[in-house]
């Protein structure tokens, strides 16, 4: 990852900007949402390998700063939601797309199903990702 940051630095103009936008694992909440409000059924379990990837990305950014390649100017986190009409659709998507990122226990699927079935007719299910955005500026190491 440090090599990639060095390549990015090479192709950027002097004082060019780098924006790092990515989800960060943090036991993302699984919720039922409707016009009457939101209810958290539980949280996903983070799998070890992508957690290690997050940590490696952070280490690479820190190293790029220490080497004087980039300076971190701003950083914020914000929610990013994925919505499905039913828990079944959500489960199919997560099993197919994120099975190497997160795990959701059977008990949580059951709780989600119950919460959704007993909620308002307009209820949907969603997962709240933690997104991080970082603005960095290319530096010229002395």
């Amino acid at each position, binding site marked *: 990852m440090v090599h990639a940051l060095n390549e990015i630095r090479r*192709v950027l103009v002097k004082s060019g900007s*780098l924006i790092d*936008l*990515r989800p960060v694992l943090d036991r993302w909440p699984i919720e039922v949402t409707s016009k009457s409000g939101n209810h958290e059924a539980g949280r996903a379990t983070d799998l070890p390998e992508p957690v290690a990837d997050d940590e490696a990305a952070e280490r690479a950014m820190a190293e790029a700063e220490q080497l004087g390649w980039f300076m971190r100017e*701003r950083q914020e986190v*914000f929610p990013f939601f994925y919505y*499905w009409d039913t828990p079944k659709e959500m489960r*199919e998507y997560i099993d197919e797309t994120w099975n190497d990122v997160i795990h959701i226990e059977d008990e949580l699927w059951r709780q989600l199903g119950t919460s959704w079935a007993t909620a308002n007719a307009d209820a949907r299910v969603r997962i709240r990702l933690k*997104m991080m*955005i970082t603005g960095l500026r290319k530096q010229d190491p002395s």
Partner: protein
Amino acid sequence: MTVQTDPERTESKYFKRYADLAGKRVLEIGCGDGRLTWLYAKSAARVTGIDLHRDDLRVATIDRPADLEHKVVFIRADSIHLPFAKESFDIAILAWSF
């Protein structure tokens, strides 16, 4: 299986606060199917999206609006070996890619 992503458009709001892309040459690393690209491409001077996944790049190219064909290109490339000359871009975006 229908999924809806970020109907609140929170990502777009934050992204625009971080990136003034007007008239800039932009490199998007991990462009995927172009979902993020279409949020900003109109204001940029030129956009180069790279990704390793051929299927995603094919979708991005198919979805590319006709009025952006002249300034948005998608290339299969790895961030460790960027096939571009020194100082080719004003802004680089790591898009869900680290």
